């Protein structure tokens, strides 16, 4: 079964309450191959979350289409699993019940779904915290709970919007390692949105660089680093070369972003 994702000429303009129009996305094109790990990197405010929400069917695009496995879709698709940038765990559910959520909705037997949920809790390294509530966990642990909850629904395409955005660098690198292992094990098609260059190079087969508003995909870079990888990779020359290359592309865009914010 293939799980490919294609974004064709997708654009979006928001209108604020006072009538200002903000073009968040200029027609953007992008394809993700079966089993590929693609990162989208861009300065903040460039329309990454907008693209993420359009692909996940949360908001409709103004033009263009999202194609999953060759079929144009509108609205949420059952093959797509989403991990959101904002706090998204259910505060009234324990870690285990959060992770088992989609299984419960699907009507799976309690014993079976908790067993399965336990497996995903272990996968994200939260064993021992099954019966904790989100408010008893750190931000990183909550985000891992959210990731496990999405993974438990076994989506063929995994979309993540800056899942480690709020975390410190050390935690982020360790979670990156965990994510690498998980993706190697599950082999699903993955699209990760990030503003972190190291993270993008560490995890991806390919990195797509986005321009500042209106956001569009400027170019994609193949990351030809051997797999399996871990965070030790980041001290190699080849890794540094990729980071340098992406920063070169991003610098001008980030600069434009800073200037735009300065003017506003």
């Amino acid at each position, binding site marked *: 079964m293939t799980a490919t994702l294609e974004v064709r000429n997708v654009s979006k303009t928001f209108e604020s309450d006072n009538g200002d129009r903000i073009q968040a996305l200029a027609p953007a094109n992008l394809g993700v191959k079966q089993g590929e790990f693609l990162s989208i990197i861009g300065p903040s405010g460039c329309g990454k979350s907008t693209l993420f929400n359009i692909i996940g*069917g*949360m908001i409709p695009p103004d033009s263009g289409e999202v194609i999953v496995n060759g079929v144009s879709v509108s609205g949420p698709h059952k093959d797509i699993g*989403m991990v959101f940038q*904002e*706090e998204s765990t*259910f505060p*009234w559910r324990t870690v285990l019940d959060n992770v088992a*959520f989609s299984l419960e*909705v699907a009507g799976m037997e309690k014993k079976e779904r908790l067993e399965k949920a336990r497996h995903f809790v272990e996968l994200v390294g939260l064993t021992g915290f099954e019966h904790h509530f989100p408010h008893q966990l750190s931000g990183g642990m909550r985000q891992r709970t959210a990731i496990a909850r999405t993974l438990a629904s076994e989506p063929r395409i995994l979309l993540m919007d800056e899942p480690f955005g709020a975390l410190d660098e050390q935690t982020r690198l360790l979670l990156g390692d965990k994510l690498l292992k998980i993706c190697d094990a599950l082999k699903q098609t993955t699209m990760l949105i990030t503003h972190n260059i190291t993270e993008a190079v560490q995890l991806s087969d390919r990195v797509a660089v986005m321009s500042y508003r209106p956001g569009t995909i400027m170019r994609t870079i193949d990351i030809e680093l051997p797999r399996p990888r871990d965070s030790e990779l980041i001290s190699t020359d080849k890794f540094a070369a990729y980071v340098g290359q992406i920063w070169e592309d991003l610098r001008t865009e980030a600069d434009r972003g800073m200037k735009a914010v300065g003017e506003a």
Partner: protein
Amino acid sequence: MTHAEPHQKQRLAFVLWGPRTAGLLVLLFLGLILEVLVASGIADPSIVAAPSEMLMSLERLFTKDNLGAAFLITLAQALSATLLAMLIGLPLGWTLFRYEVLGRAYRGWLAAMFAAPLVLLYPLFLVIIGRNYGTTITMGVITGSIPVALYTCEALHKVSPTLLKVGAAFNLTAKQTFTLIQVPAAVPDAFTGIRLGLIYALVNIIGIEFLIDFGGLGRVVSTMFFRYDIPGMYAAIFFIILISLLFLTVLKKVERWLRPV
């Protein structure tokens, strides 16, 4: 670091107990002043009762005037009024949330009613229903259901859009989204409305009981008043305040449990 710990513990204890102890001490001090004023004849004992006398009347109220039973009567009314207020307020709050036009049209009215002294409506019900529990409970239900509806509506509006997106991403039906996300997410804020509803019902029921000289705690106050039993009247009021405080504390505890930090 270790030698600093006991000091910190002491500070913590002070922070936790300090305000309460201070509050209690101020209360005791004011009581003492009142006692002295009444004893010295400066304060007229036919208007204010000496705190000592008031406290001693409490026992008499329980043994002779059935204050215990009066409490149970008021409690039963307040609880049934709150239950009915929930049966009305929860669906009403949901309706105002679900149908935006209705919400925009009526939330303001409801908020205005929340601030109005609805107790003044009692003669109307006294005429329609009569001098019985129907009137007291109806007044409790009316005043109690307003905060329940307002807070329920508010709570549903406040549900995190991200959580709703999670539901959409998992392809939940509208019904599943409601029962699995909106309801549990709204519970803590809706409970604040229920707590206020209970307090409003209690206050109004006691007030009406006093005004129509019927029922539980309010009637005891009114009986004492008509009997010119000033210490007894203050004792009954004092007891009502204690009961209200107890209610408030318990409800706050439940609320904190529902909304862990």
